[in-house]
């Protein structure tokens, strides 16, 4: 709200959190290494799981930030993921081809992105309500068309990347994953580059910060918003496909479990940059990985519900601690009327 002008930086990641943030990161890194030397197998399992758990979060966060950089708030990521997961699952069941199934999930996300753009640009609906419509519609459609007992035809398997996978610690974590996880890491760097180093990125940010100025230099604001929101939808759809085709292998009702909303916190924590969000997503992934590994870790004495709360509590803490200190794109949430 105030006139602290940090943003449109040319350089990507700027952890302009104060010194204390950097010290925390270094300490965390040291702790992670110490843990690895004490309990190599266990630590590797937790870290590998961290990366996998972060995949849908960073994809959702990328979807959110591309939208918001153009000025469209997307609260419907949860619904895009859920319906994407469902369609990808159905495609896998009825067509049997995993590649087509992933594409089906991506296309579903894109369609819902287009729907969001239509609601917020053409129908001039409140964007938060528009996103809520998507969430509720996804819940309704998936529960109506859900048939119990459908089984998938296989799921995406990890592909070890030759000798890279044998590197201790890093090998099993980064180079022994299934396709969508690899693709996601590539996408993070791709969008980091695209957003800050290409004409598309410059235009996107211009439209999100100052639409009328962008308009005067000939950028078609609403076309740009339509395009980007649809493109961003693809990423949420991919996150959905990840859940059914790579992580779980089947569909369960409401299986996104709030990941779409956590992704928004990830985006804010990452200051609307892909690389920053990736860091945040890894932190959240770690919180969730602890949950899946807690029996290993000898934490059984804590009731599992409290472990289950952890990622959500973390989301709130992160939001409370960071939202005031980072600045969202200036024109987000506002209808742009060319007249």
């Amino acid at each position, binding site marked *: 709200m105030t006139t602290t002008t940090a943003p449109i930086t040319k350089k990507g990641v700027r952890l302009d959190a104060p010194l204390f943030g950097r010290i925390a990161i270094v300490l965390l890194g040291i702790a992670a290494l110490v843990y690895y030397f004490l309990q190599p197998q266990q630590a590797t399992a937790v870290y590998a799981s961290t990366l996998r758990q972060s995949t849908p979060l960073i994809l959702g966060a990328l979807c959110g930030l591309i939208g918001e950089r153009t000025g469209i708030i997307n609260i419907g990521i949860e619904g895009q993921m859920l319906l994407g997961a469902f369609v990808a699952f159905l495609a896998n069941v009825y067509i049997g081809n995993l590649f087509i199934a992933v594409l089906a999930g991506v296309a579903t996300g894109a369609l819902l992105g287009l729907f969001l753009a239509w609601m917020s640009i053409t129908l001039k609906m409140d964007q*938060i309500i528009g996103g809520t419509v998507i969430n509720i519609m996804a819940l309704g459609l998936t529960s109506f068309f859900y048939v119990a007992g459908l089984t998938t035809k296989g799921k995406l398997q990890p592909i070890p990347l030759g000798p890279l996978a044998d590197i201790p610690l890093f090998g099993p974590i980064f180079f022994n994953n299934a396709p969508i996880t690899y693709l996601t890491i590539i996408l993070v760097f791709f969008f980091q580059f695209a957003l800050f180093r290409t004409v598309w990125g410059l235009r996107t940010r211009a439209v999100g910060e100052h639409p009328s100025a962008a308009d005067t230099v000939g950028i078609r604001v609403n076309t740009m918003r339509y395009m980007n929101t649809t493109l961003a939808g693809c990423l949420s759809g991919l996150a959905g496909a990840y859940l059914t085709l790579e992580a779980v292998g089947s569909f369960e009702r409401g299986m996104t479990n709030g990941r779409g909303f956590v992704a928004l916190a990830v985006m804010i924590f990452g200051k609307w940059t892909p690389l920053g969000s990736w860091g945040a997503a890894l932190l959240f992934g770690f919180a969730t990985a602890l949950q899946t590994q807690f029996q290993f870790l000898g934490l059984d004495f804590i009731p599992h519900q409290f472990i289950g709360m952890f990622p959500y509590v973390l989301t709130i803490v992160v939001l409370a601690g960071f939202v005031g200190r980072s600045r969202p794109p200036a024109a987000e949430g506002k209808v742009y009327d060319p007249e």
Partner: protein
Amino acid sequence: MATEESTETTGGRTAILPRIWKAGSVPLFSVFLAAFIGAMLLWLSGSNPFTAYWSLLQGALGSPEAIGRTLEKATPLVFSGLAVAFAFKAGLFNIGGQGQLLIGGIVAAYLGFAVDGLPFLIHMPLALLGGSLAGALWAAIAGALKTYTGAHEVITTIMLNYIAINLTDFLANGPWKDTGIIARTPKILDTAVIPTWGFIPLGFVVAVLMAILTYYLLFKTTWGYAIRTTGLNAEAAKYAGIKVGRIIILTMAFSGFLAGMGGAVESLGVIGRYQPGFNVGLGFDGITIALLAKTNPLGVIPAAILLGAMDAGGSQMQFDAGVRFQIIDVIKALILFFVSADIIVRKILGSRAVDEDKVTLSTGWGG
């Protein structure tokens, strides 16, 4: 967007019927459109939409018991609709009705089974208010976070939902667990039960009273005025000397109070105990209801009855017409879409009036 001041004309000077038509035409038409698309969906999936809707109607209104069931289903919906509508007036989006309801439900159940030796006239209200206050506190967390840190309530309330699900699950499985295998609290004592009069559940009467109270609060008190001013333009409200931060916390608290009461009524009047998973989706229905009612607390009552009737008739429809009752979730989502995309409906109806009750929320993530 935030410059309409005509919302204050609540004095009944204009004729009542045109006013109702003006307020109700878009929601009504939205419901018809949604039902129509729902019928198409049913037809495409191989069922006869007429039989389906007819048995839905039978199941919802066909007999005194059916009407009782509809009112019973509508009761928590009135509360969750009120909770969302009330927060909307201050420009806040409380998506956390679900969590507040759960917390209210379990605390009410706890007070209902653990406190012994009180007469009905004290025990029942105590449990009811205890549950409501618990809901208020739960929602106030989100309000305080918004005021003091700027964390947006849309995300914090959703996160609080998941935390509430885990917390209540823990309580119903652990310290407050009934004997036996099922994860639920013991049955509440008779002195805490909210009774049913004939076929009208008393809980519904409480809900209607709360709707009237909420209306009064919003439109007839200075507090309500401060809330509505904050909702229209928080900056202006600040300059007018309204303590916006405090208004945000209090509004969230009262919103949570309403949702918590919904959970309490469910525990004390319908289930007779707390049982996890009894009210999935009620929080989201609250959004649909609030927008269908155009955020007017009195409009929440018919909107909730409509959705309650759909819930009540759903199982009959599934039984008679072989239609999966989940179609109702789809229809609800469509209602929400058409109500909020009122531009479409207005075009079809050919009305040119500007909507002065339009809800505006997306002002970014900052405080």
